[in-house]
């Protein structure tokens, strides 16, 4: 019986709780504690992912003597305790989160070294990560709500970490408000399901659900509230404010937490409700939201002057790709032939895009943070000529920008190609829009590249040096992964993405992993 599922949550929480005490002892001890705890968490996450990929779905019962035993013998086939159900899709998200956590924590060691109140910063960072890990691995609706709240509050407090004359607080306030409203509606929806089926376990509810009006309202409330938190259109207005005002390493993690909300949407759509809902309508709603997100995001990004706001609007646009990919999968869920023909590929593209997006978008925000760290401004009109002094950063920017635009040797191309191919069979029009958006993205990043790194060396940035080593390591890891994922997409798709897509589609398998094949 392995305990990695428990340790994945226990280590970051323990690290966060002890962080204020280590901060009292000394700065050096606190930093080492943060790095040790981060490495321990990442190790636990990788071991857990390995275990899931080799042995199949892991179910962990909290509070039972034998934690592998999901349902007690005397309960009549009803799950009693909180269960973690970690299938290939959860493992995929855990891997994404672990990579980003590694990069962002290392980056923070240098980039936040001038700030006060770092004990709180690291404690909140670990809480944010614990929230993400909990959200993606839990199999219990109320437990999900609790982790959603941890994630929201930690994210909001971190977004406001650099007060910046109040504007960062504004960003944090918006994030906290939206997340809290979303969380409350999610809770009401959980109550609706509990009132009907007297259970909080996703697999159990999925096995007994009948298609009443109240269940439909519950699924709509859940999906709307999670869409609010993931930052797709029409609830995208908080993303540029929060992403631009948060410290850069935190923005990279906020992206992962919005991915976790997106994961929850798909977990609810595929595993909890599955074929009991009207899949074609819901699928088309998701596709239209995706197209709107793509288009609105990229067109709002073009005129921006602040580099982090520009990137934040691009993240709205990139979420659209995932929504389109998985929306096509939902729309053809009822038709086995179309599903086999292109639906699975569309879903694989959408899921593959999640990790690619987290990697290159996180790298872009870290680069923006590096530029702000050295130059103190993010305004594109003031920047210029940084290519002479920040060569590594410029190299990373080229990699990330080409990846987001979907240029061949990088990972963005691999996942976008899968989306284009499959969506083209479903509806050529959507694929054309996606390609146009991709071209506009490239145009936007060419502009950013030109105004940040090209041109003569400006006098006010005469003393600018390359950023410190920990930041370079954090960014370099992401850049290397982007190139590797772009060079060997088949390997990644076969080992990680395809099991994840199949796990999402396999609703009865998800139920059986908890209920024991009932």
């Amino acid at each position: 019986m392995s305990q990695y599922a428990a340790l994945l949550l226990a280590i970051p929480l323990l690290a966060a709780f002890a962080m204020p005490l280590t901060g009292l002892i000394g700065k050096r001890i606190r930093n080492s504690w943060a790095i040790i705890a981060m490495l321990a968490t990442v190790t636990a996450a990788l071991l857990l992912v390995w275990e899931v990929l080799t042995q199949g779905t892991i179910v962990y019962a909290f509070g039972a003597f034998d934690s592998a035993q999901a349902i007690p013998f005397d309960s009549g086939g009803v799950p009693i305790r909180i269960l973690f159900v970690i299938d290939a899709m959860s493992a995929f998200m855990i891997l994404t989160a672990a990579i980003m956590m590694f990069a962002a924590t290392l980056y923070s060691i240098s980039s936040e070294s001038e700030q006060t109140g770092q004990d709180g910063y690291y404690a909140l960072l670990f809480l944010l990560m614990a929230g993400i890990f909990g959200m993606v691995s839990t199999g219990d609706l109320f437990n999900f709500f609790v982790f959603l709240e941890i994630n929201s509050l930690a994210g909001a407090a971190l977004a406001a970490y650099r007060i910046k004359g109040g504007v960062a607080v504004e960003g944090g306030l918006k994030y906290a408000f939206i997340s809290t409203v979303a969380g409350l509606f999610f809770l009401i929806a959980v109550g609706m399901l509990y009132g009907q089926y007297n259970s909080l376990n996703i697999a159990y509810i999925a096995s007994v659900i009948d298609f009443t009006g109240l269940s439909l309202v519950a699924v709509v409330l859940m999906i709307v509230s999670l869409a609010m938190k993931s930052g797709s259109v029409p609830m995208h207005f908080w993303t540029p404010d929060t992403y631009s005002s948060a410290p850069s390493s935190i923005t990279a993690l906020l992206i992962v937490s919005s991915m976790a909300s997106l994961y929850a949407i798909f977990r609810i759509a595929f595993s909890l409700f599955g074929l009991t809902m009207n899949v074609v309508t819901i699928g088309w709603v998701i596709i239209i939201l995706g197209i709107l997100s793509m288009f609105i995001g990229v067109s709002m990004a073009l005129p921006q002057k602040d580099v982090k706001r520009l990137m934040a609007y691009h993240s709205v646009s990139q979420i659209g790709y995932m929504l389109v990919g998985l929306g096509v999968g939902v729309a053809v869920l009822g038709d086995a032939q179309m599903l086999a023909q292109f639906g699975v590929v569309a879903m694989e593209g959408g899921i593959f895009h999640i990790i690619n997006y987290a990697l290159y978008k996180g790298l872009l925000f870290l680069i923006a943070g590096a530029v702000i760290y050295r130059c103190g401004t993010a305004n594109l009109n003031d920047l210029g000529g940084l290519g002479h002094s920040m060569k590594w950063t410029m190299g990373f920017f080229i990699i990330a920008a080409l990846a987001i635009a979907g240029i061949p040797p990088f990972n963005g191309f691999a996942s976008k190609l899968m989306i284009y191919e499959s969506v083209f069979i479903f509806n050529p029009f959507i694929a054309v829009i996606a390609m146009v958006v991709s071209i506009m993205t490239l145009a936007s990043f060419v502009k950013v590249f030109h105004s940040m790194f090209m041109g003569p060396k400006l006098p006010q940035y005469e003393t600018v040096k390359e950023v410190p080593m920990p930041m370079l390591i954090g960014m370099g890891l992401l850049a290397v992964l982007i190139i590797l994922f772009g060079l060997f997409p088949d390997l990644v798709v076969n080992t990680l993405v395809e099991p994840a897509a199949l796990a999402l589609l396999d609703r009865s398998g998800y139920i059986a992993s908890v209920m024991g094949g009932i």
Partner: protein
Amino acid sequence: MQMSSIVKTTADILFPFILIYGFYIIIHGHLTPGGGFQGGAILASGVLLLLLAYRYSESTQIVRQVMMKTLESTGLLLFIIAALSAMVIGAGYFFNWLSPGGFIFGDIVTYGSTVANLNTGGLIPIMNLAVGIEVVGAISVILLALLSGIKEKI
């Protein structure tokens, strides 16, 4: 603004009673209505009484933020270590291994028993105590932080 000495004296006299009541609620959490959060909130209301009765500069001498932060972290660490301790004996995370053991808090309770025996519940009283310590620390920290935000106005 300066509170009168009647208020200060009353607060001083009431404070120990509030503490005792809060601890009573925490310790009897597994027998009567109440528990760690409720008792912790009562304890924190005692702290709030002191903060209200004295000036900001005086009350922060009595209720120090560092102390409250330490309490908060200690409570949470106690909680999570109590939960993790089950792993040492080979059980799952959060397994209540003390409960029927006959050891501390380990008396056996039969179904339908209405006898309020304090020596039951296993890890539950320990976790209640941990949560109580954490809540009083956390609420006091929040109160002190909010108070420091508006101290210029008083």
